[in-house]
């Protein structure tokens, strides 16, 4: 399991996952706002 506090490599990978999730959430919210 990914543990961002175990090593720099895992922390970096966690950062990339956060960026991906945030981009998806932002895109969804912005699209829903634009449509409604």
């Amino acid at each position: 399991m990914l543990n961002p506090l175990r090593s720099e490599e895992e922390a970096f990978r966690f950062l990339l996952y956060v960026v991906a999730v945030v981009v998806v959430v932002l895109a969804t919210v912005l699209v829903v706002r634009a449509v409604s």
Partner: protein
Amino acid sequence: MEAGALAPGRTVVHDEHDHHGPPEANRSSRVEPSLLGMLLFIISEVMIFGAFFTAYFFIRVVNGDAWPAEGTELPKLIAGVNTAILLSSSFTLHWAETALKADNRFGFKAGMFTTFALGATFLFIQINEYVHIGFSPQDSAQGTIFYGLTGLHGAHVAVGLTLLAIVNTRAFRGHFSAKEHRGVEVPGIYWHFVDVMWIVVYSTVYIL
């Protein structure tokens, strides 16, 4: 016979009595002390940011106030460029760490220096934004929360830059190696944490 000298024919035997200085500290955790310290520190940091986000969501969701305050505007584009700069610094830091593990000292030093420069640029742009943004913390609740959240994060960047400056100084003095890189790894974890927090702060404060 001189104290400590051995009689002819005797060999040196190292056992638990052959230890100098105070006894070693007891370890109650299987996690390395330096990593455990950073883990506990980051958990407390998440709680501090959580308190600030509570204030943010309170006025936006519970009170339903306008965001930002009426008559004010947040520089989304400049902050977006700044976000890219900070995100880049995590990539250069990862590059530096990877280079060090591969015994590439030039890559390590170049990566660490670039990371510091990018972090310092981020902080400079943030301060510049404060100068030109046109509202103060005392002007409105939104202003207080904006400066509180971004300022709290800026303080973390300043701490991270101090750690990076120490790593840079040690790197240029020839410290660290492919096997001994804990002193880079722990500040690296902190720097990535600061970056993750900024992604959350930027998306909630500037975009949503």
